[in-house]
């Protein structure tokens, strides 16, 4: 017999490791859920990848206040049910749900959603226009979702209907509508595999606070020019893709601090890199990863581009060094140089 410990959770997880205990789990969970209707966070690591669709539906109905839903590595999850029962969701993590095919379109109504992680959802197909509705999105991880980003977007009735619904329900989304109306004309030219990515990027450009976009290992052969519209972006991961070069619009990403180009095996030319326009008060952390790009040519030019990227971003440091003449000032708060404001802390050891 299993000798279980005092804590409820270790008992619970032991139970879940038994294969035939599903009915019992369901029962236990109903009891548990009834007790904690205000539960805000659910981790499904406990489920050891065995997660029932019906259980999810049930949980969503019970937990209207749910904020964080982590279903990582639920290997037998094929579909995510209607999410309109959990409208306050801020984090949705489906990393490693490799069998997942569909997410209910109601995901587009999650106005509070800030973090969406679909890493390695290899089979997922989602009509990407639902992204329009995610007006609070900050981090979007689509690493390894090659099917999602390489599918040809087909215009069908359901697609437009859904968008009209979205439009009725919010007044945030107004700008992109003309683009959608233009969309049927794309049928005159055969759609390229990149079309879905282009559509995604134009949708994302309407999200004002998007910080982090990870579209690595998606088998992308080209990055559309629209990438330059994501002005709020701080972190961009394009690693593991098949493109030869990047669009020049990348230099318009004036808030970008981290660019990852690892394992871009076909990358031949580096574009001009963006430099930061507005310095942050808490400091600048620039990161550039050009790792394992064996076809990269004109190294001289690459070096000089990376070098000037570095120097331009380091201007802040040289200005700060001027401040360091004030050796006796221990804390110098707000200083103003023209329209350049920053807060700094001068820590001098052994000032005594």
């Amino acid at each position, binding site marked *: 017999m299993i000798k279980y410990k005092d804590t409820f959770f270790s008992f619970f997880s032991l139970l879940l490791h038994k294969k035939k205990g599903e009915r019992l789990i369901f029962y236990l969970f109903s009891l548990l859920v009834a007790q904690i209707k205000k539960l805000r966070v659910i981790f499904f690591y406990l489920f050891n990848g065995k997660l029932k669709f019906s259980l999810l539906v049930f949980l969503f109905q019970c937990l209207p206040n749910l904020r964080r839903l982590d279903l990582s590595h639920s290997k037998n999850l094929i579909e995510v049910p209607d999410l309109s029962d959990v409208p306050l969701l801020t984090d949705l993590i489906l990393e490693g749900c490799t069998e997942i095919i569909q997410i209910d379109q109601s995901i587009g109504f999650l106005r509070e959603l800030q973090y969406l992680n679909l890493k390695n959802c290899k089979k997922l197909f989602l009509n990407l226009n639902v992204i329009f509705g995610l007006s609070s999105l900050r981090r979007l991880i689509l690493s390894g979702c090659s099917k999602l980003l390489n599918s040809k977007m087909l215009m069908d009735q359901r697609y437009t209907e859904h968008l009209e619904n979205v439009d009725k329900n919010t007044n945030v989304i107004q700008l992109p509508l003309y683009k959608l109306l233009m969309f049927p004309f794309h049928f005159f030219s055969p759609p390229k595999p990149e079309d879905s990515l282009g559509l995604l990027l134009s949708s994302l450009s309407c999200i004002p606070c998007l910080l982090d976009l990870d579209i690595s290992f998606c088998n992308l052969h080209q990055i559309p020019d629209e990438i330059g519209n994501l002005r709020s972006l701080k972190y961009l991961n394009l690693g593991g893709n098949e493109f030869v070069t990047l669009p020049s619009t990348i230099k318009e990403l004036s808030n970008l601090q981290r660019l990852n180009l690892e394992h871009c095996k076909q990358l031949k030319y580096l574009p001009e890199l963006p430099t930061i326009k507005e310095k942050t008060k808490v400091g600048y952390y620039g990161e550039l990863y*050009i790792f394992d790009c064996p076809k990269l040519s004109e190294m001289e030019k690459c070096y000089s581009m990376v*070098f000037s990227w570095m120097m331009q971003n380091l201007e802040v440091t040289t200005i700060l*060094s001027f401040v360091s003449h004030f050796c006796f000032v221990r804390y110098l708060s707000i200083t103003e140089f023209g329209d350049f404001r920053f807060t700094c802390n001068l820590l001098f050891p052994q000032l005594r």
Partner: protein
Amino acid sequence: MQPTISSAEMTIVIPGTHIPKWFDKQNASTSINMDPSTVLDDPNWIGVAICVLFVTHKDPMNLGERYPDSSYPTIVYGVSNVHHSTRYHFIVPIHFRKDLVTLELDHLLTVFYSREQFIHLLSRYPNTMHGIQFETVVTSPQGLRVVVKNCGYRWVFKEDLQQLNSNMFFSGNSSSRRRNS
């Protein structure tokens, strides 16, 4: 009131076969000792630039038993004090996987800490300036052997920045990019 620290830090990984001479202190090891006491009081000192040369070899003998999780970081780095047991490391967020990485390709990891940032890092080891070092720690994943060949650094002063150019910072690397085998 706790004021915010305004500082800069840059991390670059780029192909390259050797550490340029501009990094005037070098050590053929995974770490290098630093003595900041000479620069701390110099008002013209603005930061430190560090360079690390590393390469990936094939190693069928490495069964990766210690860290079977493939998401475990391969290279981490940081400023530490040999007399302290606590280490603060930053992860280099690049992936080394047997079926993914190109073997025998040399790369440089370049890190720049501004004066403020470096002093902030030192403040974790109060009361001593001895034993400060920059170190890298490598954990090779299954089937691979990732090797840090050498490390180098240079204290950067204001006048350095005026003279510095791309050639000095990455010198000689562009013409001699080769694949060892």
